[in-house]
């Protein structure tokens, strides 16, 4: 119907047509399966032609280059997906399939309308099941089909969520059948994931194909997010505009997405331990004390949300959250218990329930499902076993259907069939039979040509004041196998962007509902204590890395040319690195170059650079929402720089070069942090960490190289470590003398590398941190700094001795502890055990 024949197109531009033919060369669709790009007549569908033509015009070489750029973008932005079964939870780089799924507007609109209707049905169903349960009482839905779900949260029965809605964010996985219709494969109502990855895919594609994506007139995504954000902010009764995005934490498989969404929507990324219940409300622990959180976008599964009334073993939740949610003290999106309607058992009843609840049948079909808790359905499923999939009815493990929770009836041998039959007779309610969905294929780029692959599409819907809105696009998951059935992205599949092609010009900024409400504030007082903690330690680790690198560089720098390996200066450097934990104890008398390479590359050294940088990245990884992507990239680069392979026989020059490169990246990080981070509380904690660590390093350097009777050349090394040689030379024409060197390195308030300068900065940051009561005496941290300032002002450089260095270093250590005690979360939570029953 809507197909333009290639021949027709070729009349207009024969060269373009020939080029498109070349792109399509060898594209073999699967028998009996619909293909999104290629029509049944073997010609591309009309809405694909402009894209294919553009692709053909670029030529294979340029296409490869463009797609490489998209991959680079994703890698550089640190988009990742955590894989659970990896030891220690590895991060897997994001795999983007570069050919977007193209959908024409009319096709999309009917899919979207069908999903809106489905969302309304699921909302009505939840309201009934957690409310009067009339559908059960009237026999439209067996009680056992509800009670079997672990997401039927009994503590939430009988209450209506704040704001009156269970669902505020809903996603459905859909696939297109051979008949061209879209079918719903499953519903996601708990805490749907993927929307952030969809956003990143879009950004990567517009990076790779800016010209094409501009001329193709696709619907934009931003309006959807703004509408959703506005609707959540409307629920906030505090007027402070604070929405918490609750995450299980950095070990979650989709943590990257949580951080991304928090940053993108201006929400606070919070973990369970950041939150606390007081009275009838929820609060976040911030550096300025407890702050009310009235709205939470929940990405933590409900079962883990409250150890008091839900899973008692959860360490990720907030004690008392269920209680606060029940009395309306907080609005949760989605409400606790919303996951109930994800159960395949309920899907079996939706067609009947739609007529009861909506007064009409569902326009959009879903995969045929039969719940085996009923005799007639059970018999039906056993009779047609060869054509069906048998799956867990409630997403819980069921013995006899494999670890993946579903099995194809046709794959069962006679013995397994008998087993299944026995399970069915006793506990059929744990199982459903489902039609085998045959889903359509779309093209993927395999280096130089296109090949078809099956895919499913996840579509996202948000509840707004104006009703449900659908994100015009989605998250497309592509299977690597040609067998078009259930699959999971956990097993290494690719994803693709989804372009809904508009039939007319798309305005650059989408019309938003009530734009005056799109106001996000992030005052300095809302920094969660945990974020402050991580920023502080990030600062300390980065600075520690810098100090270690300076030591390494000194070891293999000028010193190596002028001093023998056994010189006292070299020994002092090695001793210092050793006390730092950056030196192996097992090789004595090695060359400075070998020592340097060990400090740079060995993972087993607690103070070696790989470990220090790893700690920095770990601290940064849990606060990515507060962090510019560029600064993050610098940390990734730093790790890569230190990980790069070393020559088999590394020289001192190799070590020097690497230390230099790493220092340059740290300088870039510092620049990005000071230029790109708002001068808010978070930045101050990062700064505090750096300044304290730098001060401690300086004091250790001074202790080693400026003690009375230090060997010749030691003061020069100290100047080098403190990066103050040039200043010294410009100030004093004489050679290094102890007094002037110590004055410059420790006391000169104008030298940004001096101890006095660090202390001044620390004092300035502490003064403006929130949560200080002017009527109270200053906190201990400020008193320590005041004492240090007084000591440094009164001191003369010549009089410093080892005790002074030690005392000052002790002050800094104490200061660090005081800051932690005052601003960070104390101690781990433990559960109170009960000995069990007699």
């Amino acid at each position, binding site marked *: 119907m809507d197909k333009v024949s290639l021949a027709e197109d070729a009349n207009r531009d024969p060269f373009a047509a020939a080029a498109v033919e070349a792109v399509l060369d060898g594209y073999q669709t699967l028998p009996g399966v619909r293909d999104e790009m290629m029509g049944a007549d073997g010609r591309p569908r009309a809405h694909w032609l402009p894209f294919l033509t553009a692709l053909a015009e670029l030529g294979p070489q340029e296409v490869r280059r463009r797609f490489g750029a998209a991959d680079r973008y994703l890698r550089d932005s640190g988009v990742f997906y955590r894989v659970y079964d990896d030891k220690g939870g590895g991060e897997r780089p994001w795999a983007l399939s570069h050919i977007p799924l193209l959908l024409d507007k009319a096709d999309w609109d009917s899919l979207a309308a069908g999903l809106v209707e489905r969302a309304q049905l699921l909302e009505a169903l939840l309201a009934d099941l957690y409310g009067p349960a009339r559908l*059960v009482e009237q*026999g439209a839905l067996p009680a*056992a089909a*509800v009670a079997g779900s672990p997401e039927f949260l009994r503590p939430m029965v009988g209450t209506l969520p704040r704001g009156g809605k269970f669902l505020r964010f809903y996603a459905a996985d859909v696939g297109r059948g051979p008949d061209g219709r879209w079918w719903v494969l499953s519903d996601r109502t708990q805490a749907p994931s993927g929307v952030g990855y969809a956003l990143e895919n879009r950004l990567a594609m517009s990076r790779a194909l800016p010209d094409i994506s501009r001329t193709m007139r696709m619907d934009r995504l931003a309006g959807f997010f703004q509408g959703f954000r506005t609707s959540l902010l409307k629920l906030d009764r505090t007027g402070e505009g604070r929405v918490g995005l609750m995450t299980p934490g950095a070990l979650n498989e989709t943590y990257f997405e949580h951080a991304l969404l928090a940053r993108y929507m201006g929400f606070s990324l919070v973990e369970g331990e950041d939150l606390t219940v007081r009275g009838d409300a929820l609060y976040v622990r911030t550096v300025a004390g407890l702050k009310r959180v009235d709205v939470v976008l929940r990405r933590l599964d409900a079962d883990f949300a409250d150890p008091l009334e839900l899973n008692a073993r959860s360490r990720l939740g907030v004690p008392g959250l269920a209680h606060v949610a029940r009395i309306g003290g907080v609005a949760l999106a989605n409400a606790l218990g919303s996951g109930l309607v994800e159960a395949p058992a309920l899907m079996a009843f939706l067609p009947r329930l739609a007529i009861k609840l909506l007064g009409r049948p569902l326009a959009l079909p879903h995969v045929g499902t039969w719940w085996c808790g009923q005799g007639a359905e059970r018999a039906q499923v056993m009779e047609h076993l060869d054509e069906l999939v048998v799956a867990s009815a409630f997403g819980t493990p069921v013995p006899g259907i494999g670890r993946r929770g579903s099995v194809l009836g046709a794959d069962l041998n006679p013995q397994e069939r008998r087993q299944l039959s026995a399970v069915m007779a006793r506990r059929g309610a744990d199982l459903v039979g489902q039609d085998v969905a045959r889903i359509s294929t779309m093209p993927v780029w395999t280096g130089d040509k296109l090949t078809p692959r099956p895919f499913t599409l996840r579509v996202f819907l948000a509840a707004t004041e104006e009703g449900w809105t659908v994100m015009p696009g989605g998250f497309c998951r592509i299977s690597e196998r040609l067998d078009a059935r259930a699959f999971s992205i956990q097993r290494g599949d690719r994803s693709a962007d989804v372009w809904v092609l508009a039939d007319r010009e798309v305005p650059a900024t989408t019309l938003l509902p009530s734009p005056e409400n799109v106001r996000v504030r992030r005052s300095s007082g809302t920094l969660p204590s945990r974020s402050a903690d991580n920023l502080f330690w990030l600062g300390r680790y980065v600075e520690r890395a810098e100090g270690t690198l300076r030591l390494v560089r000194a070891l293999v720098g000028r010193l190596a040319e002028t001093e023998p390996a056994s010189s006292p200066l070299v020994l002092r450097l090695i001793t210092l690195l050793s006390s730092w934990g950056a030196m192996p104890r097992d090789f004595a008398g090695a060359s400075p170059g070998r020592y340097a390479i060990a400090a740079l590359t060995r993972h087993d050294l607690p103070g070696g650079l790989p470990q220090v940088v790893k700690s920095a990245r770990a601290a940064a990884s849990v606060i990515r929402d507060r962090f510019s992507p560029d600064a993050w990239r610098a940390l990734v680069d730093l790790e890569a720089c230190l990980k790069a392979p070393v020559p088999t026989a590394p020289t001192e020059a190799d070590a020097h070069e690497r230390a230099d490169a790493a220092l340059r990246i740290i300088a870039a990080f510092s620049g990005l942090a000071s230029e790109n981070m708002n001068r808010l509380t978070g930045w101050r904690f990062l700064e505090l960490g750096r300044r304290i660590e730098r001060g401690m390093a300086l004091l250790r350097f001074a202790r080693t190289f400026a003690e009375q009777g230090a060997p010749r050349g030691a003061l020069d090394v100290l100047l080098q470590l403190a990066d103050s040689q040039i200043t010294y030379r410009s100030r004093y024409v004489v050679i290094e003398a102890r007094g002037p060197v110590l004055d410059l390195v420790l006391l000169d308030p104008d030298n940004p590398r001096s101890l006095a300068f660090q202390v001044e900065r620390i004092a300035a940051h502490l003064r403006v941190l929130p949560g200080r009561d002017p009527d109270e005496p200053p906190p201990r941290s400020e008193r320590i700094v005041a004492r240090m300032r007084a000591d440094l002002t009164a001191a003369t450089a010549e009089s410093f001795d080892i005790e002074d260095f030690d005392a000052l270093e002790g002050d800094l250590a104490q200061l660090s502890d005081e800051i932690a005690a005052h601003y960070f979360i104390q101690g781990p939570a433990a559960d109170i*055990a009960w000995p069990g*029953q007699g």
Partner: protein
Amino acid sequence: MLYDIRQTTTYLYGGQVRVARQVLRMTPVDRPHHQRVLSHSLSTDPGASEMEQGLDFFGNAIAWLTLDTPHDRLEISTHSRVEVKAAPLPDLQASLMVDAVREAAFASTDLGPGSPVHGLYASRSIPLDPAITDWTAESCAPDRPILAAAFEVMERIYTDFAYEPGATDVTTLPHEAFLAKRGVCQDFAHVMIAGLRGLGLSARYVSGYLRTVPPAGQERLAGSDATHAWAEVWCGEDLGWIGLDPTNAIAAGNDHIILAIGRDYADVAPVDGVIVASGEHLLAVGVDVVPVERPHAVAPAP
């Protein structure tokens, strides 16, 4: 029978606890056909800064409390007076057949707290286990009356399993206790429930007390020096839930006081809580369930 029940639970912490948040399920409520609560009090030392009381889904009384005074010792005391008048055990042979009961449970149109559907599925502390199911099936032929079948399962647990405090702990799963053939009341109730559920029958968990002082000339029942636990089996619409105590091989009767009912131990744990503290903690529980000599007439209600 009228009982005076005192329970004292003491936590000793290794260090100062700044904030503790807990839910307590230590308050008995009226249970039709079994017990009436005449009085109840609950107190903590130190006192709670916030305390709220209410009923959970299954109708159990629960208290949410917050303690925000630093403490290294917490004592929870309850004192209840409960009158127990247990319904007599129905004729075992007159109950519905196993197959019919299963069918009725799965077809139930009741989602309320008393419905059999809540006892049909695996739950947090009771995953289903094929070995327990097969063992239970030996007593549960499809055409056998449910109560006779369940009674036999109870008696077999009593005979085959050793009552051995300390052999298991609060986190022991039914299949572990089943393999070891030993445990305490919680394990026996879990095993019994797991087996019945494996067969598609509905069973639930009861936490409660047992009288500590036996009637003259009788032996003291096992499980009476702490909170006790037993199982209830759903026997069809007419008979409803029948309590069976596999630790003592008797039906729940006038010696049993019900504290809370749920799908398993996790639903009715007397205390769930989270504290912020370092170090270990110790716990002591003391229970006294003493029959009260009743004056001739009950005082009229005011």
